[in-house]
């Protein structure tokens, strides 16, 4: 058995623990290089995982207790893709944080690594309760990271964020208890198998439990009407944390894919596609709400937060249209939107610092010390995030639009996605005009960006042209990854059957 699937969880947790121990705890420079080194290694591990899982999914049986009884990790194309995405984003965010945020409070890097551990764990686990545990790990790290550095805005945003997520966790447990009570298993592949053989009385309870899970994941992924916490929280977080949070909503989305595509998906008999009827209108409403938020946003960070909501709405739409066959297009869009919004959060922070008192609000201010390079990067990021050719946003949106085949779906999806792009274009043009051209005086401030910060922003933004150039192989891969939502469960079930056959032979 290869140990590859557990490395993305073990590496950040071990390095994180190491960094809070005495020799490193007060040694910021060591912490920085260890973290960046660990995240660099994580990128390599994630690439290796991606290559391996493209041949066949990997199962890692924890403690030697075989599924369906023990906890197992499941690495398939979908989870490997998201682990790689997390690693790349985390590396760039940590690089940006190395310039300033590391000094605003203690233990920035260990918290950062624990959050990566939680996110990777949530992507890799094959057990529903284990998913809850990893959710809690990533959440408690995110609570601490959110308030890292202190300040009134952060405290205010934190309390809402924490209360909502704690209530969400309570619902998560109730849902898991209900599902375990009816299905008698927590292994997600085994659950997908047992859903088909439920009695009608059990089906109703399982449906209630499943729909409760939709509430929980809707809260994490910021689906309307559970998204009100997001803009404030993301705008209050410090830049590298906000950039890392760009992947957090995707953890919620990933869980929706796994639960409502895998367990209650096309194989679930009479419970098949039970959440799709709900997700469809809610996704459109999320999109509409995100565009209104983007138009009304008074600062660049709030505007970017609303772009996160728009991308969540779009991704939810790709999950439900065409019976889930558009998910491959959605995954391409997911890669693009995560990296570009991450870059935008970093860029917004740099613009905020260089504009002095005006911060990133759309008001008249003094010119920026490095206005030209920042302006160019802003334009690239805006083109990518709005979805104009030639960058990846355009290809992503085109794929999403192609995903809808039925006329009724096409009307709604094309209408909302295209109008949201137009409104985002207006919002970003207005923001750019205000930020770069509405100047008072000609004396720029003295703040300039650190080379590490430039590198982080440029690295993240370069993903967009790269995704355009390699759109062919990437979309082929995401199509295969989308199929894994159902196929991996079949693979796990085969392994469970083999195990049972082995045991019955032994007796």
């Amino acid at each position, binding site marked *: 058995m290869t140990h590859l699937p557990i490395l993305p969880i073990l590496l950040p947790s071990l390095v994180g623990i190491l960094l809070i121990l005495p020799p490193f705890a007060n040694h910021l420079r060591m912490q920085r290089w260890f973290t960046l080194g660990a995240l660099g290694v994580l990128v390599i591990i994630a690439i290796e995982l991606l290559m391996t899982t493209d041949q066949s999914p990997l199962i890692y049986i924890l403690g030697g207790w075989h599924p369906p009884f023990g906890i197992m990790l499941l690495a398939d194309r979908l989870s490997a893709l998201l682990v790689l995405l997390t690693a790349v984003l985390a590396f760039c965010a940590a690089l940006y944080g190395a310039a300033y945020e590391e000094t605003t409070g203690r233990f920035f890097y260990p918290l950062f690594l624990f959050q990566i551990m939680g996110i990777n764990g949530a992507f890799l686990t094959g057990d529903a*309760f284990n998913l809850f*545990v990893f959710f*809690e790990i990533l959440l*408690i790290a995110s*609570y601490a990271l959110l*308030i890292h550095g*202190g*300040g*009134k805005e952060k*405290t*205010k945003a*934190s*309390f*809402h964020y*924490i*209360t909502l997520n*704690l*209530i969400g*966790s*309570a619902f998560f*447990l*109730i849902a*898991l*208890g*209900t599902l*375990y*009570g009816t299905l008698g298993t*927590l292994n997600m592949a085994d659950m997908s198998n047992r859903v088909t053989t439920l009695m009608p009385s059990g089906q109703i309870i399982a449906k209630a439990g499943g729909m409760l899970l939709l509430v929980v994941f809707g809260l994490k992924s910021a689906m309307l009407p559970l998204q009100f916490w997001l803009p404030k929280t993301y705008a209050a977080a410090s830049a590298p944390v906000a950039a890392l949070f760009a992947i957090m909503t995707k953890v919620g989305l990933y869980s929706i894919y796994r639960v409502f595509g895998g367990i209650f998906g096309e194989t679930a008999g009479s419970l098949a596609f039970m959440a799709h009827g709900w997700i469809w209108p809610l996704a459109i409403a999320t999109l509409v709400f995100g565009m209104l938020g983007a138009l009304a946003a008074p600062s660049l960070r709030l505007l970017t937060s609303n772009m996160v909501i728009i991308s969540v709405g779009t991704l939810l739409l790709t999950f439900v249209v065409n019976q889930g066959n558009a998910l491959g297009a959605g995954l391409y869009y997911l890669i693009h939107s995560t990296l570009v919004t991450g870059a935008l959060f970093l860029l917004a922070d740099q613009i905020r610092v260089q504009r002095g008192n005006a911060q990133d609000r759309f008001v008249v201010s003094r010119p920026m010390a490095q206005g030209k390079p920042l302006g160019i990067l802003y334009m690239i990021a805006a083109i990518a995030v709005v979805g104009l050719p030639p960058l990846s946003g355009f290809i992503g949106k085109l794929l999403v639009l192609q995903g809808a085949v039925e006329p009724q779906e096409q009307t709604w999806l094309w209408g909302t996605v295209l109008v949201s792009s137009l409104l985002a274009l207006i919002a970003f043009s207005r923001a750019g005009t205000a930020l770069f051209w509405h100047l008072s005086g000609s004396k720029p401030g003295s703040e300039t960006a650190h080379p590490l910060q430039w590198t982080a922003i440029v690295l993240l933004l370069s993903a967009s042209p790269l995704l355009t150039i390699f759109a062919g192989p990437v979309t082929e891969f995401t199509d295969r990854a989308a199929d894994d939502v159902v196929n991996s469960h079949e693979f796990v079930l085969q392994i469970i059957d083999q195990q049972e056959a082995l045991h019955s032979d032994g007796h």
Partner: protein
Amino acid sequence: MELIFALCVGVLTSCGIYLCLRGTTFSVVLGLTLLSYSVNLFLFASGRLALNAAPILKHSEQITDPLPQALVLTAIVIGFAMTAFAVILAMRARADLGNDHVDGTPPSLEQTLRQKDKRS
């Protein structure tokens, strides 16, 4: 037994949700605590309720499902840690913002008085 158990869980949950909807951080933290108690009880019952049954083989005639007990143990630990964090954060918010309202800014005294006038 099932009825009493279900009633306990129900009362705890509704009290918890009521308290979570209150405006001060202290009641919200209390509400979260009650909610986590009720959730733990509920999770415990998901393996069905049984009397005089051990979760270990060969220790008694009847056996009960051990998994919910393991799940509850995990949930208790996590819930405890999260509550501790929420308490500290509530205290920090009180110190940073100068009041204990969940939004950081309580509705002004004037406004509350006006509402009272309207009611009377």
